[in-house]
Structures are given as structure tokens and as C-alpha cells.
């Protein structure tokens, strides 16, 4: 109960600070539309001329990819805000209160997840006039997977921020993590095009399984084995992310 209350306080504070930044809010909401408008027109031709694409029409393949990409890039850089808060002494000030360290992390992660879910829903809705057709149930489950992914990367980003404590170090670490994970996920180009060794590498990338699952769900294929692997990967990522995040927030800093 106390934990929920503390999480709520931290969540509210992060939300309020977000709304105070009109630029942040504008970018957060316009980004999904920008993705569609600038990327959408390329889709149909690419799909027609690419062999071995996953089943489904162009939008059922690429909107899930965009959603997962949003889940990754919408959350993986949130640590920068935490570096600023750390430098301002806010983290120490909160750590000297009796509040749970996990709540200090989770409140912030939840803010990021809520923003992500709003963005992802917007992206999905805006895709409909472009030509997306997908079953509602599958889309809802897919959005839950994307939210879980976002929670994991947000927590990992905060953990990295608290360990590294400078923007420069954080930028290089996060980029060197996010870019390969994205490339090996099959979001940009399907991994079916890849040589065997690259395919094997991408098989251990949890993001790839989440992408496959979201694509299957957009075709209403809830029982597909890829859906199962996607759920397992997303849950695994959340557990690892929150564990590492909480451990870092709990650890006494030097």
C-alpha cells in the first residue's frame, strides 16, 4: 500500500514535469504520425519487391515494426532526464526519505510506459486511414507487449544513467546497445533475408521475438508459436530491466 502510494507520488511528479515541457509533449505525440507519413509511402513497393517477407499486407508488417521501434527508442533515452535530476541533487534528496527505492524507479518507469502507450495507440489509430486492417483483440495484446518492452528499456536506461552519471557516457552506452538490438530485430529489414549466422545471432535478440509476436498478433494469430516466444521475451526483459533498475536504485552510491 505504502509502495503503491510512493510510486504514485513519483509517477505524478514525473508526469507533471513532462507536461511542463510543451516541446517534449509535442514531439512525443507528433513522432508517431511523422513515422507514418514519412515512412508509409515507401511500404507498398518494398513489400511487393521483397521476397520472404513475413505474411500479411504491408501495413500489418510495418506498423508492428514501427510500434516496437517506438517502444525501444521512445524509452531507451529516458536516462538523460535522470542524469539531470541526479546532478541537481533530486535523487539523493529522494533517497534520504523512507520511500522505497523501487518506488522511486517504478514511478518514473510508469510515466514512460503511459506516454509510450499513448504514442503507440495514436500510431495504430492513424495507420487505419492509411490502410491498416487488424483485429482489435490482437492489437490490444500487441500494445501490452510494446508497453512491457518500454518498461524494460526505461528501467535499464535509468539504471545505466545512475551508474554512469554523465550524458556523454550514457549516450555512447545507450546507442551502442540500442542500434544493434534494432538492426538485429528484423524491424527495418526482415531477418529472412539474412545469412544463417546473422539469423542465429538475431534469434537470441529478445526484440526480434517481440517483433514477430506483434506481427502475428496484428494478423489475429494469437496461438502462433511466435506470439508465445514474444510474450516470454517481453516478460523476461521486464524482469531483468526492473531487477537491474531496482538494484541500482537500492545500491548506495559513491
Amino acid at each position, binding site marked *: 500500500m*505504502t509502495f503503491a502510494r*510512493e510510486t504514485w*507520488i*513519483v509517477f*505524478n*511528479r514525473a508526469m*507533471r*514535469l513532462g507536461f*511542463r*515541457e510543451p516541446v517534449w509533449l509535442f514531439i512525443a505525440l507528433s513522432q508517431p504520425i511523422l513515422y507514418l507519413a514519412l515512412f508509409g509511402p515507401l511500404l507498398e513497393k518494398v513489400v511487393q519487391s521483397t521476397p520472404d517477407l513475413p505474411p500479411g499486407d504491408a501495413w500489418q508488417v510495418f506498423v508492428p515494426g514501427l510500434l516496437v521501434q517506438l517502444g525501444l527508442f521512445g524509452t531507451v533515452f529516458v536516462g538523460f532526464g535522470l542524469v*539531470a*535530476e541526479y*546532478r*541537481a*541533487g*533530486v535523487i*539523493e*534528496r*529522494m*533517497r*534520504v*526519505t*523512507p*520511500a522505497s527505492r523501487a518506488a522511486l524507479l517504478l514511478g518514473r518507469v510508469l510515466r514512460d510506459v503511459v506516454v509510450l502507450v499513448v504514442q503507440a495507440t495514436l500510431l495504430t489509430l492513424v495507420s487505419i486511414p492509411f490502410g491498416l486492417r487488424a483485429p482489435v483483440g490482437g492489437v490490444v495484446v500487441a500494445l501490452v507487449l510494446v508497453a512491457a518492452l518500454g518498461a524494460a528499456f526505461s528501467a535499464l536506461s535509468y539504471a545505466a544513467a545512475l551508474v554512469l552519471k554523465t550524458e556523454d557516457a550514457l549516450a555512447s552506452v545507450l546507442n551502442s546497445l540500442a542500434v544493434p538490438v534494432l538492426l538485429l530485430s528484423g524491424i527495418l529489414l526482415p531477418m529472412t533475408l539474412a545469412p544463417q549466422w546473422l539469423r542465429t545471432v538475431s534469434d537470441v535478440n529478445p526484440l526480434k521475438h517481440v517483433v514477430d509476436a506483434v506481427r502475428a498478433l496484428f494478423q489475429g494469430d494469437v496461438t502462433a508459436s511466435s506470439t508465445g516466444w514474444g510474450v516470454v521475451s517481453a516478460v523476461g526483459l521486464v524482469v531483468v530491466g526492473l531487477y537491474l533498475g531496482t538494484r541500482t536504485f537500492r545500491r*548506495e*552510491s*559513491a
Partner: protein
Amino acid sequence: MIEARGLARTFTTRTGPVEAVRGVDLDVDAGEIVGFLGPNGAGKTTTLRMLTTLLRPTAGTATVAGHDLLKDPVGVRRRIGYVAQGGTSLPQARAGEELLDQARLYGIGKADAAARGRELFGRLDLEGLWDRSCASLSGGQRRRLDIALGLVHAPQLVFLDEPTTGLDPQSRANLWEHVRSLRENGATVFLTTHYLDEADALCDRILVMDHGLIVASGTPLELKRQVSGDAVALTLKDVARAPDAATLAGALAGADQPTVDGTLVVVHVPDGSSTLPALLRDLDAKGIELAGVEVRRPTLDDVFLTLTGRSLRDEPAA
């Protein structure tokens, strides 16, 4: 209020272990204002961070505000306030809202938090700044907001780390008043400073820290008494009479070896003001004319110099 034994912290760095704090014993009673005085890097902040549960000691034990530091850190956190050195407010956040959230993290209800916050803003001369962003506050106002944030839960014990560093003289004097008023409101205050005048003006008791150890402790007066008394500085009209004057000064009860520098003769005696009349008479009888005379009470800088062989002022900023 604080009872620490053998508190130590060693940091592991790439160049090997660094003993930041090497075994500190300290006792602070309720209602005291106690200060850590020492140069940058002496281990003051590290000790403070251990006492406030932010850093785990590598050795030693402590009871803070009635709770064991290691076994019940949450119990300690509930009862102490901590105002960190570098400030604690986010520039884009609003002052009043930061205070409310901080209070609520201590488990205080919304209405109580607002009432407490308004009261603190009044007490700390922050009226009218509730809805202002922290970035728009002056340095002194921001520091007072930091203190308000550390006091939201009415702690019995308040830790202030370098409370006035970076403030202009007027804001410093103003902040000292607020620190004194904390005690009047029943709190115990533990602060660190590398300003001698601050320790002198605020503290009932001073712990002098150097290289991770407490090298001396006592009231400002007691510490100053450890130094060989007051300095009596005589400025002569005639350089040729300096040796004679030095001989006379050196013969005073309890005097040390006088130093002569041109027309200036300096001697330390246990009590300068009562020694002076006799000294002046003796000088007059020998026909040694004076251009000026000064009795200087020892400062905490003299204390530090005596204890460590270094001047506090010589320390380069960290």
C-alpha cells in the same frame, strides 16, 4: 542523538583503495549545533553521507536519532533531514510542488503537507515563491528551499552539508540566523563547513577533521585556547630597538619566543589584554617608542594550523 564508533569508508578506485574516512568516533547530544570543520577532501561529506544512510560504512557502527544505522536505515531516514552540498532542486520544477512531493514521500497527507510547506516558506523567507520555478530563484532563495525540503517532516536531527558555500555575505548571515532558529525549534543540527567564521559563529562544538580523522574537538573557545594564546604585535618607531623589545616581550609570563620582522615584534602570551599594560610600562621605561600595538585573538585558522601544520586557507579548492 548521534553516537558513532569507528566509522570508516574506503573507496575502491582504479589506482587502489582510498581511505576517505579512517575511523571516526563522535557523540552529539540533542539540541546541540555541532560542526565538522576541515579542508575539502577531509572526509566531512563522506562521514555525513554515512550518517544519513546514503553510503554504507566499510567499518564501524552508529546510532542516529535512536536507530541503528545499519540495522534500521529506514527508521533513521524517518527522523533525520539532510541538505546536500550541491543543492537539491530541479531547475524546471516548481518550488512548492517539489516541497509537497518531498513531504508526501515521508508519508505526510496532502493537506498536512501543504500546511507544513506554507509554514516553512514563511519561516524561511520564501513567501510568494511557491509557484515559481526553482531556476528563477536566487542562490540564497534556492539554498533556503533546499533547507525547507530537508525540514518538511520536522526532523529531530538536521544534517547540513556546506550550507553557505557559494552564497554572498548577506545571504550567509541570513542563513546563519535560520540555522540558529532550527535549534530554537527543538532540532539538533550537524553541519560541515570549511569556513572558520561559520563554525565559529554557529557551532556549540567543533570537530576538526583532516585526512579522514577527527584531529580535535571542543567548543570554538576551547579549541582556540589550545593555540598558544593571544598574539601581541608591537610596531616600533625605531628598527634598532627591536632586539630590546623582543627581550622584554620574551620575558613576559608564559610568553613564547618572539619573532622580529623589521619594526614588527610578535609574541604569544596566554592572555594578551591583561599582559599589555605592564609590557607598555616596561617599554616606556626603556625608552622604546611604539608606532602601534595590536592584540589578536587566535582564529580557528590558527587552530587548524597548530593541529595539522597547514593553513585552511592554503587548501586548493577540490
